């Protein structure tokens, strides 16, 4: 069974670029493979393949993050009506300002992308840095809101509603921290020898940042309306 045969000695047809496309026309002697589901264009450049890879990864990552927060939101809605320790909780006023800061960061990020599209490198860097600064400002604002609540003696142990506030804000801040790291990486990386182009990296980072922005608006609405 384990002898060598002609089939064992067949040389692989090796290409330099991968990607799940169809074999060259007229060479397909096996099944057609014509399903419209090929993994990509056979002639595409490495940079675009890499960009697609990161875009797919960030999309899947967002699905997983959404499941995580939806599970927390489901618990919030169930415990709101069943928990004996649910006391109405008013979100700190500072959160509205923080939300405005985060929304502004999404706007500046889009401005940065527009600058990059017209090859205005200086303008892009300024707007990108502003976005990063606004992101950091949002997290600092959340920390200040936490400190205000703690100073006022409002702890997670006092009410499940308050506990949810801390869990929502902390979990969101942890995920947003990942976004800030991505902004810093894109802002400071040279991208001369990287597989990924700056345009592609900016696009992928912007998907995540806007997602974090929308997620926060949802969480704030939940906390505000579900009190």
């Amino acid at each position, binding site marked *: 069974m*384990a002898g060598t045969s002609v089939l064992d000695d067949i040389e*692989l047809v090796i290409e330099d670029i991968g990607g799940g496309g169809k074999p060259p026309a007229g060479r397909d002697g096996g099944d057609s493979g014509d399903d419209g589901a090929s993994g990509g264009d056979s002639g595409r450049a490495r940079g675009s393949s890499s960009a697609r890879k990161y875009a797919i990864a960030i999309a899947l990552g967002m699905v997983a993050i959404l499941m995580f927060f939806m599970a927390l939101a489901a618990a919030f809605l169930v415990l709101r009506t069943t928990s004996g320790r649910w006391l109405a909780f008013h979100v700190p006023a500072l959160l509205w300002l923080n939300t405005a800061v985060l929304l502004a960061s999404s706007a500046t990020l889009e401005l940065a992308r527009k600058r990059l599209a017209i090859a205005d490198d200086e303008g892009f860097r300024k707007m990108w840095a502003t976005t990063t600064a606004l992101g950091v400002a949002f997290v600092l604002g959340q920390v200040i809101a936490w400190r205000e609540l703690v100073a006022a003696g409002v702890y997670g142990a006092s009410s499940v509603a308050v506990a949810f506030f801390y869990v929502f804000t902390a979990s969101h801040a942890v995920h947003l921290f990942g976004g800030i790291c991505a902004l810093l990486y894109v802002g400071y990386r040279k991208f001369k020898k990287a597989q990924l182009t700056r345009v592609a990296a900016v696009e992928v980072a912007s998907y995540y940042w806007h997602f974090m922005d929308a997620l926060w608006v949802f969480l704030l609405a939940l906390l505000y309306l579900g009190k």
Partner: protein
Amino acid sequence: MASFQPNSNGEPVAAEPWLPTIFSRDHKSVGLLYLWLALISVVLGMALSLVMRVQLGHQGASVAGSTGSSERYAAITLLHGSLMVFFVLTAAPQCGFGYFFVPLQIGAREMAFPRLSALSFWMTAASLVGITASVLVFAGSGPTVWLGSAMCFCAAMLAASLNLCVTVIDSRARGMTLPRLPITVWAWFVTAILSLLIFSILLAAGVLLFSDRMFNTHFFATAALAQASIASVWQRWFWFFAQAQVYVAMLPCFGVVTHLLSTYSRKPVWSERMAVLALCAVGLFGFCIWGEHMFASGLNPFLPLVFSMLASSLGAPALLLIACWFGTLLGAKARLTTAMLFALGFVSLFLSGGLSGIFLARREFAGGSTGDAFVTGHFHLVMGVAATFAILAGLFFWFPKMFGRRLNEALGKIHFWITFCGVYVLFMTMHWLGLLERTIAAPDAAQFRGLRMVIAAATVATVSAQILFFVNFFWSLLRGDRAGAKNPWRATTLEWSVASPPPKENFRGGVPVVFRGAYELGVPVAGEDFVPQHLAPELLAKLR
């Protein structure tokens, strides 16, 4: 550290293929590290199951801990379950085989994110250390350490799943269209999607529980909640994860078994596309039937009917898979290698365990059954033992590719038959015990002593038989027959087109072109009966 040396083709291959580079990002090293981790866990898990069965067989003894320590026994049960479910049944088929073979089978040089591969492994290893230490080392803070470690495992699985998904979507070789994907890759892909969804849920539940333990919050505090509320929050989340987790463990096994049955039967997978659809359907249904575990927990009266119907309808894709397996085997001159025997053993165990699952899907039957011997027997037969058979089948099949040597077939077959008979005696007796416990109004422990002794004896025999496997495994690693040809099973998929063990970067630094599907078996070509995926049509015409 593994060193590399040139093989007969001048390609760099690992000098000691069984010794993966510890901090490597190479997918083969990470896959091997996962398999070694699973091996350590299975040894520990089996030792714990022996302790538990001996304790249950001799109720007066204090084998599982200090005298009268029921908490200690519960902790050992928890450790056994955690090790087996997380690090063996989940990690070995999905991450061990998955990391090693996904890039090889789709014609990629590496995983999409090699750093993420290494990170997921090291998080899994840290989780194993934490979970083991939580029971064996820490006393008071054990549950918190266990919880933190379980959350770490969730994060590791999320990272691994994301990596596997992106690799399958983006890194396929030219010509490796979706219909041409081996069914193993489909199974790993569907499992990765399912894992992405469910491990996030368990992570969220873990965050709240961790908050309760560390910050004195009251998400799950029993004093503040009615019994029904506890069920509605914790149990829903847990079963949302845990029921789907069964399919995270089983789906890769379905893929491996389908692939092996076809290869050893020398026939294409019967209705291959239907098998792929069935795999997807198992993933979808598995995600929706968590409520079947809550029939005893006070659900809305309408819901058990819905979940019961959903759980029963899982039988449809399961039946399709079984039809594919028998359709493949029908009229085949199957090669009864050890790998094939374990694959057939999996089919047998899956059918037997599936039959008792039909009873458990019924609301009136399942209502009072949570945690009894019938459920334990069903669960272990389907998920634990059947999945282990599939892992062993995969190991016997891919051992030559991974290590360049073959496992001893004679020893493997003896190991198979003892294990196969042992698990049937063990778990069928457990089913019987469960049924008796139900039918007797006021069961007395003494009445079932005989059955418990049979179960304990069968456990000892089955666990002892695994010594044969370990002897075979380690002897073959060092002294086993060299695989000789790079394709000893005459298989069609791409991993068999490269040397055994595969060289660094798999395909001489490039990626191969794929010309056909993964199951062109039984086709006479140049004295052989298969057409490899990488064989170009013009060359095939010449050979014919």
